[in-house]
């Protein structure tokens, strides 16, 4: 995948979307506009955080997924599962039971993503000791890394160049399976993802030439399958959960929860979750408003991965359950013996490459031209009403003004400007309706009792 084309897992269903603007208003990077009555997502701007999906009232925003049966293209079919999958099940359901039903689904091996977490922490501690620019920022959450690329490029040098567990574990398990005699082409590693951001990270990796994973399976799908299989089990002889069933340390189990990294790193470390909180903090960090910070764990979702858009369970319960599960594994080492044995191999592969800035704020590559455009935006803002009503199909008056100077919208999209133009006989009522229909779709202004909340709404 090239640097200028980005894969996004978040898609808008043309059939379901009715252009309600909820997604447009919550998008933290203002990547959504309404066109022809449907939400459209700007590819280059979107960071795959999934906020739009959470607020959609009709489930029109969905996460595209690979066909489950693709796993059967491989002889050795590995599921790489993050601990939040397990955290969605009550304590009575053991890891062994979950992994054995996953083998019944067709996986030959089930491994845990956090298996290399202790090793990663150790590598991050070493890397941050040598870091010139503090605080260093974790590369764990792909939505945050993308956010920094597009909105805070000056902070990119602070992103720690150590691969997160998903990549490190995939590299590690692949090597182990090869050493067991599998041919590289026979091994298919599939990540069970809690979010859209991880899918995008696998399909268009940042800081790596290619992803060590073969595909991604959405966690909600797997969760439902596991749930059904476990419920229908009637003392039938189940298959074994498989060898290499790893015991994770309490720290590794909690790695993807808020504080998972910050509590293990050295010095003054902060854990910040929720993308709006992250943006607020990075804004200040860029001004150098904080001194003496060493490490930042930044996660796009509230409650970190327990709050991933594909995690069906309640995020607070998932967190609580994982904390409880972690207690049971008290005493397990952070770096398992088998990983230690591969530390030489991993140390040569754990570094992330260059992460390029791709600021989406730039109005023009040429500074003089960009300055002229800023002036034009400010001039337009003199006329726009500052109500941020969204009726133009852009989230705020300011975003409409910026779209206009980028030649992606027109001033007449604003309904208030239209009224003024009609008053001065510069726009016919007929024409105004046409403009509105172009943004909101044909017949949008006609009576329709089937819409959500209207007389015939069946919900």
């Amino acid at each position: 995948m090239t640097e200028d084309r980005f894969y996004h897992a978040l898609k808008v269903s043309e059939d379901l979307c009715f252009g309600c603007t909820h997604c447009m208003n919550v998008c933290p990077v203002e990547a959504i506009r309404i066109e022809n009555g449907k939400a459209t997502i700007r590819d280059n701007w979107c960071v795959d955080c999934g906020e739009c999906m959470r607020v959609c009232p009709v489930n029109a925003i969905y996460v595209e997924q690979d066909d489950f049966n693709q796993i059967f293209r491989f002889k050795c079919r590995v599921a790489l599962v993050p601990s939040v999958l397990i955290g969605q099940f009550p304590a009575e359901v053991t890891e062994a039971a979950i992994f054995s039903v996953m083998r019944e689904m067709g996986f030959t091996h089930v491994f845990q993503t956090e298996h290399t977490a202790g090793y990663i922490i150790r590598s991050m501690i070493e890397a941050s000791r040598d870091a010139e620019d503090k605080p260093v920022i974790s590369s764990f959450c792909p939505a945050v890394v993308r956010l920094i690329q597009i909105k805070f490029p000056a902070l990119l040098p602070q992103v720690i160049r150590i691969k997160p567990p998903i990549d490190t574990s995939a590299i590690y398990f692949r090597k182990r399976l090869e050493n067991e005699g599998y041919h590289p082409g026979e091994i298919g590693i599939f990540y069970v993802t809690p979010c859209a951001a991880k899918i995008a990270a696998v399909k268009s990796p940042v800081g790596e030439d290619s992803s060590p994973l073969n595909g991604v399976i959405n966690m909600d799908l797997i969760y439902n399958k596991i749930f059904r299989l476990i419920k229908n089990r009637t003392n039938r002889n189940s298959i074994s959960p498989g060898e290499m069933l790893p015991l994770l340390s309490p720290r590794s189990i909690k790695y993807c929860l808020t504080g998972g990294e910050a509590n293990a790193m050295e010095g003054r470390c902060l854990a910040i979750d929720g993308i709006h909180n992250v943006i607020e903090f990075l804004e200040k960090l860029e001004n150098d408003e904080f001194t003496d910070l060493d490490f930042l764990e930044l996660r796009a979702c509230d409650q970190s991965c327990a709050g991933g858009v594909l995690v069906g369970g309640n995020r607070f319960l998932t967190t609580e359950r994982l904390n409880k599960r972690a207690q049971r594994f008290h005493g397990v080492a952070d770096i398992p013996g088998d990983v230690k044995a591969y530390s030489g191999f991993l140390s040569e592969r754990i570094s992330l490459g260059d992460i390029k800035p791709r600021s989406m704020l730039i109005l023009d590559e040429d500074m003089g031209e960009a300055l002229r455009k800023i002036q034009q935006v400010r001039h337009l803002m003199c006329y726009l009403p500052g109500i941020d009503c969204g009726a133009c199909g852009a989230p705020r008056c300011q975003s409409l003004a910026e779209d206009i100077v980028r030649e992606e919208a027109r001033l007449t999209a604003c309904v208030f400007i239209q009224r003024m133009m009609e008053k001065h006989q510069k726009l016919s009522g007929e024409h105004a309706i046409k403009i509105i229909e172009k943004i909101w779709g044909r017949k949008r202004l006609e009576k329709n009792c089937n819409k959500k909340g209207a007389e015939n709404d069946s919900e």
Partner: protein
Amino acid sequence: MTFKFEIEGGNFSKAGNASSAVKKILKQINVPPAIIKRLVVALYEGEVNVVAHARKGWIKVVIEPEEIFVNIEDEGPGIPNIELAMQEGYSTASQKVREMGFGAGMGLPNMKKNADLLNITSQVGKGTNVEIIIFLNQSHK
């Protein structure tokens, strides 16, 4: 092009707003991230100094093809000995200011480190005037 902002003395919760607004503009006009960072850090220190030490201030940012010029002017006590104030660790910050996490005496030195040119003039009892220049074409440095 010229941009102007006002700073309210004593209001720490708003300190940084002008720096953030200038930062957004610099990002929009494609100034390299490393230069933005230096300018914003210098500007932020100046902004906080007005909030911490003066009553009221104004920021003027002039963007030209070759350089960015920042002027931070305030009404306040002024600085009696600028050379002393420029020294690392020198601070007259009040207890209240220190409680806010400021007053390490590192602001002006940090400003000097990040600006290509820095010029401070002050009249005791009247106010302080800080001028910062950052060259956009780094070969000028």
